[in-house]
């Protein structure tokens, strides 16, 4: 099926985002240093317009365009919406941090917008080729963002590590995709699924491809044993970049895992489920235990990410509609919590202070009670303390795992979560019960405060009323 003009209407959100990124790129040429705020405003306006278009085009049906390369479905619409909202949060949280360090330049906005475009492309990919190109677009924006502070040695080192390991992960994924192409003769998810349903594990190339594709997915998620890049990248990158890296791309990675594993390789669920089980146990175990030993807050949160990835895998490996919905719920919730936690860290890294060590958080309550409360809420939520939403997300995943008869796996996950609760609660102790070295009150921008309040309330309200988001997650997998 060749090109039709109607396809352009289907990809309107992506087109608007692309146009915004290009407009910022050109506008930046005509601005002097005092006027950089226009980049910020234009970027947020473009993101909001994209968000509105996603909402307008959204319906319960499924549209496939560009010869089966592109799919628009309720699942994708929800994830796109959340990615766009998280990107807006990223811009709002990061303004003061970047401005103070002389990093408030047009390239920052352009690269983040292109990365968001890459994520949208990944979310609505309906063929391996589209998915891979979206992933590369995202990754190629993230590498320079990690090294965005050109004079920072840890930044350059982190970017180099990220680049080399990311290229290795992409290579694995691409090798797996080429094997699947060899076995099925097609890139489209629907066509691959057809062959997989007919042949299953009889086809040796399919097995071979499946393993490499899974390694690629695990690399991008940062699951153990493919997690080596995560702590170093978090530590070396500027805080707003970590904020961006930890939130939105996790949702895109989840979309990638779902599209590959469920949409195209769903018939092999029993096989990839076993591999995911090993990855999940290792991630939850190593992430939670090693995080205790960290004194650097960014590294600690990196290991916390690893353990949360394990939980997302738990939901996927259950292989039921309930499990997939739980994993989706967990991913969305985790991205919100990560955005909030790193958002607070980016907001308090002003006036020459760079929050790196846990001790830098001491006595935050005396300096700004509201921010401390928000950070404490995020920590409670990550630890899984009710009524924050993190509790509910963990409960759903564990419920899905238990209902397929893997009770021992749920017990292991709970034991390691309890171990992990220690390092989250330690942060709360530092916030409230320790004295700050410098207790001058913080002066923060109003819009960032509004954003963190919205973010915190979302975490709290979703925990008390989870039914709305859960209903959408369930609907996405009921088809």
């Amino acid at each position, binding site marked *: 099926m060749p090109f039709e003009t109607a396809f352009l209407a289907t990809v309107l959100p992506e087109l608007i985002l692309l146009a915004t990124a290009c407009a910022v790129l050109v506008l930046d040429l005509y601005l002097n240093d005092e006027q950089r705020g226009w980049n910020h405003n234009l970027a947020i306006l473009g993101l909001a317009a994209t968000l509105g278009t996603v909402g307008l085009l959204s319906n319960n049906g499924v549209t496939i*365009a560009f010869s089966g390369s592109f799919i628009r479905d309720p699942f994708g619409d929800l994830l796109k919406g959340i990615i766009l909202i998280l990107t807006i949060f990223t811009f709002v949280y990061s303004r003061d941090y970047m401005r103070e360090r002389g990093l408030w330049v047009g390239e920052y906005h352009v*690269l983040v917008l*292109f990365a968001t475009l890459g994520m949208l492309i990944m979310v609505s990919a309906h063929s391996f080729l*589209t998915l891979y190109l979206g992933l590369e677009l995202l990754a190629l924006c993230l590498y320079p963002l990690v090294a965005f502070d050109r004079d920072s040695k840890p930044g350059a080192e982190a970017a180099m590590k990220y680049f080399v390991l990311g290229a290795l992960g992409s290579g694995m994924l691409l090798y797996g995709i080429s094997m699947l192409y060899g076995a099925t003769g097609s890139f489209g998810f629907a066509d691959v699924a057809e062959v997989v349903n007919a042949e299953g594990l009889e086809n040796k190339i399919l097995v071979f491809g499946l393993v490499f594709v899974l390694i690629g997915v695990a690399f991008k998620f940062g699951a153990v044993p493919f997690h080596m890049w995560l702590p170093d990248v978090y530590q070396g990158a500027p805080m707003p970049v970590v904020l961006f890296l930890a939130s939105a791309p996790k949702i895109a990675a989840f979309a990638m895992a779902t599209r590959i594993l469920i949409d195209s390789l769903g018939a092999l669920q029993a096989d990839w489920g076993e591999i995911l089980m090993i990855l999940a146990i290792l991630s939850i175990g190593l992430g939670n235990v090693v995080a205790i030993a960290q004194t650097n807050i960014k590294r600690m949160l990196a290991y916390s990410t690893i353990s949360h990835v394990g939980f997302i895998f738990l939901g996927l490996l259950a292989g039921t509609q309930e499990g997939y919905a739980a994993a989706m719920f967990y991913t969305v919730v985790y991205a919100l919590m990560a955005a909030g936690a790193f958002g607070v860290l980016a907001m308090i890294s002003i006036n020459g202070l760079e929050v790196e060590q846990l001790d830098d958080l001491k006595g935050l309550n005396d300096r700004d009670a509201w921010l401390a409360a928000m950070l404490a809420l995020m920590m409670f939520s990550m630890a899984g303390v009710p009524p924050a939403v993190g509790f509910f997300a963990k409960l759903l995943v564990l419920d899905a795992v238990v209902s397929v008869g893997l009770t021992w796996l749920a017990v292991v996950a709970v034991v390691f979560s309890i171990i992990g609760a220690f390092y989250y609660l330690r942060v709360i102790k530092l916030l409230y019960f320790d004295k700050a070295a410098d207790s001058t009150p913080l002066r923060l921008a109003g819009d960032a405060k509004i954003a963190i309040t919205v973010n915190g309330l979302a975490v709290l309200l979703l925990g008390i009323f989870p039914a709305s988001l859960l209903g959408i997650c369930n609907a996405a997998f009921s088809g």
Partner: protein
Amino acid sequence: MGFEKFLFFLFAIITLFSAGMVVTRRNPVHAALYLVLTFVATAALWLLIEAEFLGIVLVLVYVGAVMVLFLFVVMMLDIDVAAMRAQFIRYLPLGLLIVGLMMFNMILVLGPGHFGLEHFAKPAAAALDYSNTEVLGRELYTTYLYQFEIAAVILLVAIVAAIRLTLRRRPETKYLDPSAQVRVRKGPDRLRIVKMPTEPVPAPVSQAAAGGKNGDDQ
């Protein structure tokens, strides 16, 4: 069939040999040249599987453009070969161990037992008038239009990222700004006319110099 197989093994051996030389050569220029040989032999392998267009593109783009550029860069960089050599020897045993294990695994999994011709039949050869250049062009601009456009965006991002990471204003470098040079006017920029009274000159020798100073460039 027999000659085709011979060609396959010939080019495969050349590829393996030159790839090994890329890693082990002491001189980076030699390593780059061996990489060129690897690409050429790979292009020949691609021709054997009837991917003529890709084979030619590999030679044109990688050998003709990328590697030549790469050679220039290698020649301009001042690489400390001895230090690299020391690292190489230090990690050699570990590297060999990993390569050995991977080879063993790959022979177990990928051997003819699992991937032989009896499991996967050889695809039929394309018709004589089949042109994969034409098919590739047609598919790229119709079926794969969306992917083609994404690839264009990726290239744009690569430009933005490279400029962000490497472009710096360096105050110590002395350079000319042609647009500023062109815009210079004779008036106040290049020439300044100073009105001053004539001075009594003691010696007649310096009279010419003083007269020149008072400017006749109106």
